[in-house]
């Protein structure tokens, strides 16, 4: 099956810093989603981005489908950004999701 790798696995930032998270996938995909999982386990959809660039406030994402990667940018990080960030790729006729390995982000004061 398709492999989805994320880097870095862990990231510690001071409040106000910027960061880039990367997602590499091993095969063609129908689509890609970025999620933030908060400390209570809720999975929050950040972006649905098969290709191109999207922005939402301090967050933006870019997917280059032909090169099989996606990037999530977090600017001016806040403590509430802490949690685990997953990318997940849609494959097959039912658009099943295969999740990446995740990046655990901790933002400190």
């Amino acid at each position, binding site marked *: 099956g398709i492999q989805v790798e994320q880097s870095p696995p862990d990231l510690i930032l001071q409040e106000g810093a910027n960061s880039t998270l990367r997602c590499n996938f091993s095969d063609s995909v129908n689509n890609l989603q970025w999620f933030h999982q908060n400390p*209570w*386990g809720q*999975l929050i*959809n950040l972006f*649905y981005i098969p290709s191109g660039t999207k922005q939402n406030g301090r967050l933006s994402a870019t997917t280059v489908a032909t090169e099989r990667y996606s990037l999530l940018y977090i600017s001016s990080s806040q403590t509430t950004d802490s949690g685990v960030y*997953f990318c997940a790729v*849609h494959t097959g006729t039912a658009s*099943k*999701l295969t999740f990446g390995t995740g990046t655990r982000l901790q933002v400190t004061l």
Partner: protein
Amino acid sequence: DAMVIQNPRYQVTQFGKPVTLSCSQTLNHNVMYWYQQKSSQAPKLLFHYYDKDFNNEADTPDNFQSRRPNTSFCFLDIRSPGLGDAAMYLCATRIDRRGQPQHFGDGTRLSIL
């Protein structure tokens, strides 16, 4: 406002005692999914319903079953839970149209005593 609702948020059961988790949706989406997420791991698909058609993943354990009595509701039944089944269970829905994402509920965290 919640569109995919999972009940309960926390569930405790005894080893070997059957347990049912529920998911309901107000989105009228035709596809519903169940994912299992163990501690410090990524969510993993167990099965999905495409309308009424049930689709099991190859490596989903036999003691996991599901029911979808109508479009709005989907249940996850664990017949004989073992300690290894302690996890967060996430339900998701999607309308089968081009360019549509999956929408997730808040999950049910299952503990086994």
